[in-house]
């Protein structure tokens, strides 16, 4: 059977990424999770091969691929290490993409080549201790001064935060203007007053250095404003629409990995004198898992294809992210169940998949926020 949507280019891309990840990432995937270590040795290679500038144009150092290629790459990387898939997804879609979509030509020349080649890592700084889903309520400020923005911000749960060089900071440039007073300024690591807080000790995605980033009276040059003043939430929502497709692809990769391990174990482990897969109870689980994975894949690829066609993707991206992340949790849970006690042990990869899957229902919009977005669109209000 030939898959729908997939072209020869996509197949080659999938084989290429799979082979790279099997060779370079799989041998260390469990170890970097346990040690909560960011795998620079592999990330540097990925940078040289174009993984950090998937959709950036070749003239700015990118690989020049489309959104469908992007989700296939995130899916394949996440199948081996969801934490590295997360790094790529956030870097490509909510750090690099907004600069490509909203940055001036000068800003693109300044930041894109280094980001696209992985020489610099990007991060997206929206969440604050008391601001999660309600993005319009942020308290960070970037007040205009003579030749700079004076930025004060306390951003938490910043993916890639511990290693990021270029951070998109959401802050109020006009505190009196409410939601319309929010803007995005680009802060570079090393600027005076830019402080990286402690790394979060997380349940899953442990190889990603998620950290808080604080800016204390940080002077950011005036030309570091991305887009126009007050355009912050528009940029944020556009970035998150793209980002959600990436996170959906990441969840899909985790689910596929859990299905693979479930099938392998069901064929190998003997109980009552036959392989587990001969027992109807296990067959039902495998059937449900495979169906969830395929359905998630169709939704994720569809959202990417719509993006490639230039269509509105908010609803499709929200649906893909909602479905794929819920599927990842269901499928990883069943994979643990098939493994029995061993599935609860760190000796088996499904334990890691189970932990990694959980956050996909939370970050870049919770499942509940996505239901809000979808319902609003369906109801037309």
């Amino acid at each position: 059977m030939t898959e729908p949507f997939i072209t020869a280019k996509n197949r080659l891309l999938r084989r290429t990424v799979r082979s790279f990840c099997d060779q370079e990432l799989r041998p260390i995937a469990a170890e970097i999770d346990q040690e909560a270590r960011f795998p620079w040795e592999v990330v540097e290679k990925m940078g040289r091969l174009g993984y950090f500038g998937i959709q950036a144009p070749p003239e700015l150092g990118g690989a020049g691929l489309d959104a469908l290629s992007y989700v296939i790459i995130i899916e394949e990387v996440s199948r081996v290490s969801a934490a590295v898939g997360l790094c790529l997804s956030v870097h490509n879609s909510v750090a690099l993409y907004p600069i490509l979509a909203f940055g001036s030509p000068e800003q693109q020349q300044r930041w894109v080549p280094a980001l696209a080649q992985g020489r610099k890592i990007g991060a997206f700084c929206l969440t604050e201790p008391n601001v999660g889903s309600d993005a319009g309520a942020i308290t960070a400020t970037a007040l205009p001064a003579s030749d700079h923005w004076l930025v004060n911000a306390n951003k938490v749960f910043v993916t890639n935060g511990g290693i990021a060089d270029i951070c998109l900071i959401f802050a109020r440039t006009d505190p009196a203007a409410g939601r319309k007073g929010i803007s995005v300024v680009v802060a570079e690591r090393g600027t005076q007053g830019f402080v990286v807080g402690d790394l979060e000790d997380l349940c899953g995605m442990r190889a990603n250095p998620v950290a808080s980033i604080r800016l204390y009276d940080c002077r950011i040059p005036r030309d570091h404003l991305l887009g126009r003043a007050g355009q912050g939430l528009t940029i944020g929502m556009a970035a998150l629409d793209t980002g959600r497709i990436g996170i959906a692809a990441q969840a899909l990769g985790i689910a596929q990995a859990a299905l693979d391990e479930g099938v392998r174990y069901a064929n190998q482990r003997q109980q009552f004198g036959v392989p587990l897969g001969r027992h109807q109870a296990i067959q039902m689980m495998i059937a449900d898992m495979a169906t969830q994975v395929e359905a998630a894949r169709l939704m994720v690829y569809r959202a990417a294809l719509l993006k490639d066609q230039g269509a509105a993707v908010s609803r499709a991206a929200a649906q893909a992210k909602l479905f794929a992340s819920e599927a990842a949790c269901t499928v990883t849970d069943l994979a643990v169940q098939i493994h029995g006690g061993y599935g609860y042990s760190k000796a088996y990869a499904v334990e890691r998949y189970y932990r990694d899957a959980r956050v996909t229902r939370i970050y870049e919009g919770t499942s509940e926020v996505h239901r809000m977005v979808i319902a609003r669109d369906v109801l037309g209000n």
Partner: protein
Amino acid sequence: MPVHSIVCIKSVVRTAPDGVGRRTPDNSELNPFDRPALEAALRLKAALGGSVTALSMGPPVSAEVLAEAQAMGVDRAVLICGPALAGSDTLVTARVLAAGIARLMPYDIVFFGTRTSDSDTGQVGPQSATVLAIPFIGGVKQLEPALTDPLADAPTAPGATASHWRLQRLIDGWEESWQVQSPMAVTIHPRAYQARSIALGGIAAAHAPLDIQTWGLADVGMSVDSVGLAGSPTRVSNLRKIKRPRTCRMLTGEPREQVDALIEELTTKGILGS
């Protein structure tokens, strides 16, 4: 001294055939033994200049492995394709490839993998060289231009192409050194060159747009009855899977005796090197 190389590659079936093997995009891939051959040719080009052409004979799905070769960095890709070619044995494959190679004249070196992962004969490289009547060295580990003509013991004329080469080949625990005059054909030892990881930008570039030349039988001057099943003097009459039962042998005695017995066994079987 630019070097013009041709690398013959094959789209192989990834899974074991069940009845008649049918190649589809989902079950095909670049023969893994061809990757080191592509790498060797690309490194030669990087060092000396010139060009690398990937050549394949096979059904249309083979275009995908040619695109992969382009993503790795080859300059040109040619597919010899036609329904009459189905069922060709290694001799006919070699004749067709040789006809294609002749059309790609002038060339210096024709590279092959040592064998394919799906039919495993190892014959097509040496047979093609025989049809072309050019020298052939198998299992090459390293090749470099000889700056002087080692056969004549005199410097090569300035500006001449690297027509003399120093080669090392690996075989059965030996390393042989050769001096060979090009044009020549070689198979590259599977462990000699670690093929490069493909850059994502290379994949985008190879497909923008896809540029693979397709030649039919007439283009290489061959007739329908000289190829395929009709033209093949050999035929696979049966293919049977051999199942080797796994046995478990318990080693007894003191730990030291057990370790000695285990090492002895592994050494005898050639799993541990002597």
